[in-house]
């Protein structure tokens, strides 16, 4: 029953504040993580088996009667569902210890589950208006979660995020209205069929530009990135992880890919625009990351840069490019969440995010330092970790299609990535331990456990990349390619 991906988190979220009255910590911790674990297991077993016969559209039944809720599942949505549940589960585990200080834990988990439900809904919906609604569900929950600490910095970042995000939603809504006005339909297939009958390239161009702006803002592609370096560092660490690891990808990259491939159709011009936007993001954000001294801000800029790689692969549009882009999406989701976890652990232990004040923390926090190194190297593209393979595939795809300039830029930017991650690693964890950090302790159990799980995944995906690629990424890329 695929509707569980939307219904279950929502239902549990609705009762969590009441549960929180009875048990402030244990029950909310347990319930929300159990939901996420259950959904993850179902994604890798039941839903995967369902999909074996090909893409499915499921009709929801309520009290024995069919209601007009149809959700579509294909390789691409299943791949996204798996990624969402995987990262969310680790975020849930990490929150058990991290969110102790913030209070109102039940409420926090309720918002987290609503956000997960919104992302799942977005991935499963098959009409444009539902995409818009679930985009908003995830976004509204994320505004509150960014401001969860209630400090001045958090509130300002959340407000900035809210304002730019509203512009994005408005652009998306106008684009949907234009398409609806032209075709009288909202379903992906119906709109695509309608557009094929009409000869209206100019109008489709305007709609595409609006989608690009709206989803580009959500994905924080440069020049639409202004909100991200404020919002992601200010949020509590698990929320930074889910925002950088998932939300920008689901509400930005997934939506762009789904709509451009299955509704508007990927034209060579669109492909060029996407690739150049992506390349600018990769390079500019990498340079900006290089100059940061705030640990989480550096990671935030790195997210912009890495999402650039994902969009570069998908924008190229060849089967290999799309597969590489999606594989990088998975690798970046895992590794970036891991890095936000470790930076959160460091911040909680030392009380600072300033890299210049840290140093030598590896002696006191060996697990955090080790997992951080794994994540950094994966994103920088060092073999044999996951990030290496996905970047390799993207660059191979670029060369295969004769895009030599972009391929060279992608390789050079990868060197930049390695550079700033080594700066981060050296300043925070290596070197001499400063006097003031002699009392620092390793992060609590669940925080370390969540980081270790993700680090193992980074290594696992790298070592068994052929298996992961053929069983998860390739079906997703094939499903996307059907829209060609």
């Amino acid at each position: 029953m695929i509707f569980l991906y939307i219904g279950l988190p929502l239902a549990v979220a609705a009762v969590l504040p009441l549960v929180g009255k009875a048990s402030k910590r244990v029950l909310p911790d347990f319930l929300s993580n159990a939901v996420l674990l259950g959904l993850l297991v179902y994604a890798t077993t039941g839903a995967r088996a369902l999909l074996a016969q090909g893409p499915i559209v499921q009709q929801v039944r309520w009290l024995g009667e069919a209601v007009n809720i149809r959700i579509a599942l294909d390789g691409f949505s299943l791949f996204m569902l798996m990624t969402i549940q995987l990262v969310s589960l680790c975020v849930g585990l990490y929150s058990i210890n991290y969110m102790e200080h913030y209070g109102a834990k039940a409420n926090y988990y309720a918002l987290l589950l609503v956000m997960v439900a919104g992302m799942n809904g977005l991935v499963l919906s098959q009409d444009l208006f539902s995409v818009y609604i679930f985009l908003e569900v995830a976004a509204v929950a994320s505004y509150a979660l960014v401001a969860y600490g209630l400090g001045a910095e958090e509130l300002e970042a959340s407000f900035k995020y809210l304002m730019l995000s509203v512009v994005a939603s408005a652009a998306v809504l106008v684009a949907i209205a234009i398409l609806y006005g032209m075709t009288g339909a909202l379903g992906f297939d119906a709109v695509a069929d309608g557009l094929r009958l009409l000869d209206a390239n100019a109008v489709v161009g305007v709609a595409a530009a609006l989608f690009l702006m709206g989803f580009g803002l959500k994905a924080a592609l440069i020049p639409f990135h202004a909100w991200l370096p404020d919002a992601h560092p200010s949020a509590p660490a698990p929320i930074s992880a889910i925002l950088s690891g998932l939300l920008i990808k689901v509400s930005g990259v997934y939506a762009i890919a789904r709509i451009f491939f299955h509704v508007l159709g990927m034209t060579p011009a669109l492909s060029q625009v996407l690739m150049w936007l992506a390349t600018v993001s990769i390079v500019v954000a990498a340079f900006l990351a290089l100059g940061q001294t705030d640990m989480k801000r550096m990671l935030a800029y790195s997210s912009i840069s890495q999402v650039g790689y994902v969009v570069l692969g998908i924008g190229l549009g060849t089967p290999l490019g799309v597969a590489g882009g999606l594989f990088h999406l998975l690798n970046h989701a895992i590794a970036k969440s891991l890095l936000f976890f470790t930076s959160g652990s460091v911040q909680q232990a030392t009380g600072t995010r300033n890299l210049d004040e840290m140093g030598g923390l590896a002696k006191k926090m060996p697990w955090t330092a080790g997992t951080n190194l794994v994540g950094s190297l994966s994103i920088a593209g060092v073999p044999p970790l996951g990030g290496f393979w996905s970047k390799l595939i993207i660059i191979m795809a670029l060369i295969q299609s004769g895009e030599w300039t972009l391929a060279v830029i992608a390789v050079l930017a990868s060197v930049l990535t390695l550079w700033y991650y080594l700066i981060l690693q050296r300043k925070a964890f290596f070197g001499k331990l400063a006097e003031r950090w002699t009392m620092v302790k390793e992060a609590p159990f669940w925080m370390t456990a969540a980081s270790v799980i993700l680090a193992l995944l980074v290594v696992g995906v790298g070592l068994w990349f052929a298996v992961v690629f053929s069983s998860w990424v390739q079906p997703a890329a094939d499903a996307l390619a059907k829209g060609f």
Partner: protein
Amino acid sequence: MTFQIILLVALLLASAAAILAKDLLKSAIALAVASLLLEIIFFQMGAPYAGVFEISVVAGLITVLFMLTIALTKQGDDIRESKTVKIIFPLFFIVFALIDFLVMRGILARIPALEAAAETGTFGDVLWKERSFDLVGQVAVILAGVFAVLALFRKRDHHD
């Protein structure tokens, strides 16, 4: 046609007034006027349900909420806006209007006219039977909103 153009221009003016007015109360009233005009446009274009919602929720309920909030806020803690806002907004507005004029004029002619059908089925049919999935989304948005308010207005007891 002329009537519609007058309505649209008035809608623009009222919306701009809502943004530019210094007094919050005037701003709220201008917004209500804009929403009323929008309601008439909806009604004229054959979308009575959208019109009814617009007038009851936006012009009615939200205006009352705004007024209540303004009435409850203390006098004297007005926030000074930076002066650039006054220049930037009209500038953007003019640029946007220009682009709108140039792009839309070319495009509108190309949009095929759909058959002008009245809304099919009753409102209930459309909402409950055709757009059921949206209702799930609506429930989720409301939940997110409620939890957001609970979270943002909670007592800060533990946070350091």
